[in-house]
């Protein structure tokens, strides 16, 4: 049986059509603030229940508890703050107070209304240390935190309109994935998080997990990434080519998750699991250095953290390294193959990227040639 949404109920904060028309007529009377693309897509996530049980941006109570205990006020596990920041001076100029309704807009798009329930100071250094376990500004999450406004605004939202989505065709909401899984007859589903074009290591992790469940939900994160990462359309086209040739069509679903990577390692791994639970997954794959960056986290920190959540409601599935072994004649992993050194060919992401960047097809033991060809078909497959 598919799990209930996190916290018990799938959140729906999408404004109905009649009210939307009415609000749009009065829009010039509502005090508004300009938001970023990252905030705009997260508003959509909140509205469609991807972030259930959140119904808006966190109040101070929830925020403090998430930092200190990794749980919301109602004891539900939650590890990543979802907040709306603003510059204090700007806020003072607007003369806002608790109870006011705010329009959150991105350019000309009225994205959502927010009932301002709470406002509180952001301590950027504390935030960074608790979420990312470091205050080193070379960490991309810390860097972003240090650039945030000094005030946080909490309150429930009502979603009006999304910003442009170049991948609408690949975007499924939790209601849709849940109905799709049911239609496919899946009672157990394993979720796979990725920000990469697939190599054989990824494929075998997925297929090993899929051996024990009804279906596989491949859910790449699409959004702001680091320089040198694969571009979003490359990831999607590469997966389509792979699924088309090497997966059973009725066993694998590909759709995207639009949100920024936070690179918060262990905390983000739990957040990623919660989001997949909301999409209807019963299991979630956690690999080596999940959501990590540089060497800020130990390779298996993101697996260990799950021990603190007996009540997560989704089962993490842990994997070590997968690689090709010449002695074993196949794709194996550290749990089953005793060989090392020259006997094994590990699919190194760095090496694969280097080869592709110079127009070469990586060895078959690392990447499917059909996938490599698709990637090489792009003029520039990497984020600049």
């Amino acid at each position, binding site marked *: 049986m598919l799990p209930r949404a996190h916290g018990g109920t799938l959140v729906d904060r999408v404004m109905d059509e009649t009210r939307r028309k009415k609000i749009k007529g009065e829009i010039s009377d509502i005090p508004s603030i300009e938001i970023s693309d990252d905030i705009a897509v997260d508003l959509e996530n909140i509205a469609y229940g991807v972030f259930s049980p959140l119904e808006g941006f966190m109040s101070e*109570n929830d925020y403090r508890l998430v930092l200190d205990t990794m749980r919301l006020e109602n004891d539900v596990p939650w590890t990543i703050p979802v907040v709306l920041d603003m510059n204090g001076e700007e806020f003072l100029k607007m003369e806002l107070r608790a109870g006011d309704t705010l329009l959150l807009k991105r350019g000309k798009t009225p994205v959502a209304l927010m009932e301002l329930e709470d406002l509180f100071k952001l301590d950027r250094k504390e935030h960074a240390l608790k979420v990312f376990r470091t205050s080193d500004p070379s960490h991309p999450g810390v860097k972003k935190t240090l650039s945030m406004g000094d005030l946080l605004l909490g309150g429930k939202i009502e979603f009006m309109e999304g910003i442009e989505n170049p991948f609408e*065709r690949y975007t*499924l909401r939790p209601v849709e994935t849940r109905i799709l899984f049911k239609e496919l007859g899946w009672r157990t589903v394993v979720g796979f998080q990725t920000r990469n074009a697939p190599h054989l290591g990824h494929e075998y992790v997925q297929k090993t997990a899929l051996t024990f469940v009804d279906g596989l939900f491949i859910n790449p994160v699409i959004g702001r990434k680091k320089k040198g990462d694969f571009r979003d359309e490359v990831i999607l086209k590469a997966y389509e080519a792979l699924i088309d040739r090497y997966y059973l069509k009725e066993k694998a679903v590909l759709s995207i998750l639009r949100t920024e990577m936070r690179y918060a390692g262990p905390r983000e791994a739990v957040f990623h699991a919660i989001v997949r639970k909301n999409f209807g997954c019963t299991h979630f794959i956690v690999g080596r250095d999940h959501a990590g960056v540089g060497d800020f986290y130990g390779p298996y920190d993101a697996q260990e953290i799950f021990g603190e959540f*007996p*009540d997560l409601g989704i089962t993490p599935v842990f994997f070590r390294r997968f690689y090709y072994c010449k002695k074993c004649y196949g794709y194996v992993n550290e749990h089953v193959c005793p060989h090392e050194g020259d006997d094994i060919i590990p699919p190194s992401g760095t090496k694969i990227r280097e080869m592709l960047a110079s127009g070469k097809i990586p060895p078959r033991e690392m990447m499917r040639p059909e996938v490599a060809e698709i990637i090489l078909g792009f003029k520039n497959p990497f984020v600049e």
Partner: protein
Amino acid sequence: MGDDKERKYTTVSIPVQLYEKIKERIEGTGFTSVSDYVTYVLREVLASLEEEEKEEVFSKEEEEKVKERLRALGYLD
């Protein structure tokens, strides 16, 4: 009002013998106190009860609308 922002605790009673048994059991484990252990076990038990509750149901109308989009996108035949 700093106190309001922290997780609040309350006291529940358990038999002393049970307390001693747990204290012994958690020695050398990751649990640092009997309270931590009891909290963990209770969360686990409550979550497993919740798992048995019925899954989300959608109205027929909503379900049809969703299936139409899923077919249009090629997710369903």
